[in-house]
């Protein structure tokens, strides 16, 4: 009998709930430490980002107008789906240099992070809303609402946990997101997209690109339809560029110079609040 050849996965982008190849046709060769496994990763282009932004914008209205309870259920469902794919992520994370123990921890924490934010999705609005005392005949109250579309540069040092820690609070708050996966450890990001595909997250709410930071950061930060930009990294030139470009249309800028995302302090309802707009209502009342 002839010897069987393993079937390799094609790592593609995740845009609008579909898995297209990059429109540019360019690829990055990714090799593991022992140089035994070679994977082709899409080198996303500015046009891929533009297409992802169109999907994110059109998905944003529907997602933010769902009930908070429904969003919580969907986030929980992502956690469930992730749980069922442990083996695949174990294999990928160890291939990307983690020990078995580290990989197991990273998967556990990624699942738990989704469960954590699923819990907060229908509670943060009550916790952060307030009634303001005013000396006029108005009932005055303030509440947080989704800002819209968030563009994010994911942490480079982790393949899965960093990505998940950025995505979960953003979508728990009713935003949609376009995220650039880790450049040096990109494999699990696309496998995570497969998890999203089988959970009930509507297409376009989460879009995942792979490619070079240096090429895409300019476009992520200058696109006029982006409402908030999250930058995870230590490069001071990049941090500065993001701040300057964000000023074009006054995007929220959120910087996370964090290396180790495993600490529990990196999950917090305040992370949800970072991509929210504050709405205050003056409602007329009698004396």
């Amino acid at each position, binding site marked *: 009998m002839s010897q069987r050849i393993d079937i390799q996965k094609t790592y593609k982008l995740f845009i609008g709930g579909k898995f297209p190849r990059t429109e540019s046709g360019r690829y990055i060769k990714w090799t593991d430490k022992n140089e035994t496994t070679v994977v082709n990763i899409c080198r996303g282009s500015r046009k891929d980002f*533009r297409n992802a*932004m169109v999907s994110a914008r059109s998905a944003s209205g529907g997602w933010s107008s769902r009930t908070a309870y429904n969003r919580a259920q969907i986030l929980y469902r992502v956690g469930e789906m992730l749980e069922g794919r442990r083996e695949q992520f174990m294999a990928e994370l160890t291939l990307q240099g983690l020990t078995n123990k580290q990989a197991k921890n990273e998967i556990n924490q990624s699942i738990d992070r989704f469960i954590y934010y699923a819990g907060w999705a229908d509670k943060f609005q009550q916790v952060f809303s307030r009634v303001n005392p005013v000396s006029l005949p108005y009932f005055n109250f303030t509440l947080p609402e989704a800002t819209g579309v968030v563009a994010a540069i994911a942490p480079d040092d982790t393949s899965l946990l960093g990505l998940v820690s950025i995505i979960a609070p953003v979508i728990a708050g009713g935003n949609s997101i376009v995220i650039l996966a880790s450049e040096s450890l990109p494999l699990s990001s696309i496998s995570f997209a497969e998890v999203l595909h089988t959970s009930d997250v509507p297409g376009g709410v989460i879009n995942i690109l792979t490619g070079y930071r240096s090429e895409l950061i300019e*476009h992520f930060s*200058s*696109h*006029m*339809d982006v409402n908030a930009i999250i930058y995870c990294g230590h490069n001071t030139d990049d941090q500065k560029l993001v701040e300057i470009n964000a000023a*074009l*249309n006054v995007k929220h800028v959120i910087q996370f110079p964090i290396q180790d995302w495993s600490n529990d302090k990196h999950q917090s309802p305040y992370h949800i609040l970072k991509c929210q707009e504050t709405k205050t209502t003056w409602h007329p009342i009698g004396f």
Partner: protein
Amino acid sequence: METINIQKTKAIDQVNTRERVSRLFSRSIKNESKMQALYLALSMIDLTTLEGKDSDGKVKQLCYKASHLHYKHPGLPHVAAICVYPTMVPIAKKELEGTGINVASVATAFPSGMADINAKLDEVKSVVDAGADEVDMVISRGRFLSGDYNYVSDEISQVKDACGKAHLKVILETGELVTLDNVQLASDIAMEAGADFIKTSTGKVSPSATPPVVLTMLEAIRDFQIKTGKKIGMKPAGGIGTAKQAIQYLVMIKETLGDEWLSPNLFRFGASSLANDLLMQIMKQSTGQYQSKDYFSID
């Protein structure tokens, strides 16, 4: 009544038409030629609002948009016309005075065309009296599909007479004509009967303007010009919302009918959201940044 003898010129090869469309549409238009195409497409738009919920305010706002496309970018052309329901013609006419923008009105029981011929003619006369420069009529598709071509032809020529000086655009509603052969035949009937423009759709039936249908109509126009020397205009309408699509259609006209049709006098886009997408592309080309709808007026 005089009868018109329509001869089927040729059968349409569907596969070939699709193939030609995909070859024309894959052409890459960049930089200066793209900018020129974007400006040209803007000047060809019939900015349209045809909703049951249209109000005076909505029409006024659309008229203002038609003449002030984007204040941040001086030197933009204005759109070719505003397209509204008959009751909105007087308001549009007043708002657009002195701007050089035409007022087009749909008539003849748009969008179904299900009315008595006299009622249709009265409607046409009343919109022309109210000041409409262009009239968009619908053909009787039921009659057409049951083979009553003379009825369709007579109706168009009567409407043409009722239009007087106003330009007549004939809507074939190709989404209901089923085959490309029917599209060609309906185009021939409309042109023989006196249409100044032929138009694909009302926008109320799906599918509306599809590329193979538009190519078939453009070829009918070309054949008609070869036969009679008359130049008939073309207006695809419905479903054209992006600058990319608009540029693809411009390539198609140039390759089928030549440079002379690259003008608002002989080509129009029936659209509402297309204008903002073209503006966003123009701003992208000139600033280098992708744009957001947040910074353009509502269409």
